């Protein structure tokens, strides 16, 4: 179902240079590929570097953050070598992005129509009336029955879910190859969440886009993603297809995330969240970044950070438990899973 590589990220490092000479290694050596037509999810707790990874792809990381290393290639074209002017032709056109907060993501002083039309006019060689026609069609497409009126309405006149629909219309207005959705449903009512995600998937099929879906909801991953990256401490700790993340879970952190999901067949709401919290990005431990919270931490884990290694086709893990010579124990593999979605 997925085709050739569309976006390839290698060795990406994005650091924040803070006061007192502290350096927050928000994204610290990330490699991954998104294929054509694929939905790749990134999951991880708050502060694990999901948003900064996606903003790095767009080159929209604000000071004091800086991409210091790596390549980001869109169809073999290295985006990090482009001038800022060339990047404005990529953003919104080849790669579009929608954000978590539909309340604040649209400019409050311009109409929905104005904001969609300006995007179309920027990237497509269309007259204003033609751009307007297209904007109305897009609004209809994302589910506004009274699209014409909505064109002249301001963001504050729409509900959160409707605003996110308008954001989606804007994002797909120039047929991007890749749509990055950074927690697109987190800020919405539970009943609206699924609608918005379903809409995203419908648009993906229709326009044959790829989607990079950032979330911390494993239920969303199970339902919508093809493949998933688990991030912790600015690095990928596990990468695999969506079936095996639930049925053949390897990394102790991923197991912890799954255990913290509410379960359908148990009375208890939560089996328990992972103890402790994510170490701050300016003071990661020397060894494995999860060591302080890991129930299986060994001496070796505190000495050095394991590599992200393939343990099976399409399955990579960053953990000494699965390295040659490390202890390998089938019990650690979570084999059953029922997740509430």
């Amino acid at each position, binding site marked *: 179902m997925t085709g050739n590589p569309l976006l390839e990220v290698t060795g990406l490092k994005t650091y924040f240079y803070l006061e007192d000479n502290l350096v927050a290694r928000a994204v610290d050596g990330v490699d991954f590929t998104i294929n054509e037509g694929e939905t790749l999810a990134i999951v991880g707790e708050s502060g694990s570097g999901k948003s900064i990874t996606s903003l790095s792809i*767009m080159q*929209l990381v*604000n000071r004091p953050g800086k991409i210091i290393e790596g390549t980001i290639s869109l169809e073999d074209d290295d985006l990090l070598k482009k001038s*800022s*002017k060339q*990047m*404005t*032709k*990529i*953003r*919104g*056109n080849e790669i*579009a*992005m929608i*954000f978590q*907060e539909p309340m*604040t*993501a*649209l*400019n*409050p*002083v*311009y109409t929905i129509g104005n904001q969609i039309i*300006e*995007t179309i006019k*920027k*990237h497509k060689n269309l007259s204003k009336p033609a751009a307007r026609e297209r904007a109305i069609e897009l609004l209809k497409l994302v589910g506004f029955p009274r699209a014409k009126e909505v064109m002249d309405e*301001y963001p*504050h006149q729409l509900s959160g879910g409707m605003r996110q629909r308008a*954001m989606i219309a*804007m994002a797909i207005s120039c047929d991007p190859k890749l749509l990055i959705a950074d927690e697109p449903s987190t800020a919405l009512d539970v009943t609206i969440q699924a609608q918005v995600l379903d809409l995203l998937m419908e648009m993906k099929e229709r326009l044959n886009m790829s989607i990079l879906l950032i979330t911390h909801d494993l239920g969303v991953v199970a339902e919508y993603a093809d493949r998933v990256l688990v991030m912790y401490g600015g690095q990928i700790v596990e990468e695999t297809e969506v079936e095996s993340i639930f049925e053949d879970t390897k990394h102790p952190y991923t197991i912890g995330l799954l255990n913290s999901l509410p379960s359908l067949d148990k009375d208890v709401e939560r089996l328990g969240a992972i103890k402790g919290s994510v170490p701050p990005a300016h003071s990661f431990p020397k060894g494995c970044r999860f060591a302080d919270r890991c129930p299986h931490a060994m001496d070796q884990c505190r000495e050095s950070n394991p590599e992200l290694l393939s343990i099976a086709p399409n399955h990579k893990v960053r953990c000494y438990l699965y390295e040659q010579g490390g202890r390998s124990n089938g019990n650690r593999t979570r084999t059953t899973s029922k997740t509430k979605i």
Partner: protein
Amino acid sequence: MYKYIIRRILVFIPMLFALTIIVFGLAQLAPGDALSGKSLADPNVDPEIYEQQREALGLNDPIYVQYWNWISSAAQGDFGNSLIFNGRSVMELIEARFANTLYLGLFSLAITIIVAIPIGIYSARKPYSMLDYGATGFGFLGLAIPNFFFGLIAIYVFSINLGWFPSQGTLSSPGVSGFDAFTDRIHHMVLPGITLGLAGTATYMRYMRSEVLDVLGSDYIRTAKAKGMSERNVLYKHTLRNALIPIITLMGFEIGVLLSGAVITEQVFQYPGLGTLFLSSVMNRDFPVVMAIALILGILILIGNLIADILYSIVDPRIRYD
């Protein structure tokens, strides 16, 4: 929106009424009247004569009668006669000076806007640059130096030493007319205009900087960039309009600040405006003039706020009109 504007104007009326009561009340509360100053100055005059004059001027009527007399004629533009300037009518005294003060205020506001807003924007785009530091330093100075002191220094340097600008008045000679008179007026307004606008310029610069910085960090600016909007578009379309919203509100108050600043500044430059007239009338207890000026300044401040409200409702669609 028209409904909203009309409603704002309706609210204006009771405020105006309250203003007249305050102005009248304050004048009543002030110790003494136009004649008590004189009786102190000249003890040889029989107090009986002052009493007769008080009676004639209506100063012995009950307060509400005095208020009614004052307000009903004021409504027709008649503020009575000055007690000092040989009984010339207050309106006549004020008319000539009102325009002078208005020009000075507008000139100073224009300087403020032209200087403060671009510098504020630049400072926000390049925070911690040389110009930003310079602007910050200037901002502190501008707020710390009192108007009269800055005015004196400006006169000393630019009038006396360099001779670039005149130090007082509005025209070099009464004879000039036409375009020459216009440029001559501007020439005379440069020093008092800058002096008057100094604090405002400093304030707006700081406000503009922090507003633009705020907006630049907002989600919708990130959205605009993510859509591929150019830096120019992001700044001039998406940032500026949002950053100006609070500035516009501030402008409404600025009119009051300017007018009160004008009282001192005009004095320093011997500029024949409402400010100088106000000060001398207060000194002489020329109450009809004081009350008229206070009322006019109050009305101007109310109008300033009204204009700010209307502009605000035009710029910010989130204002609710109902």
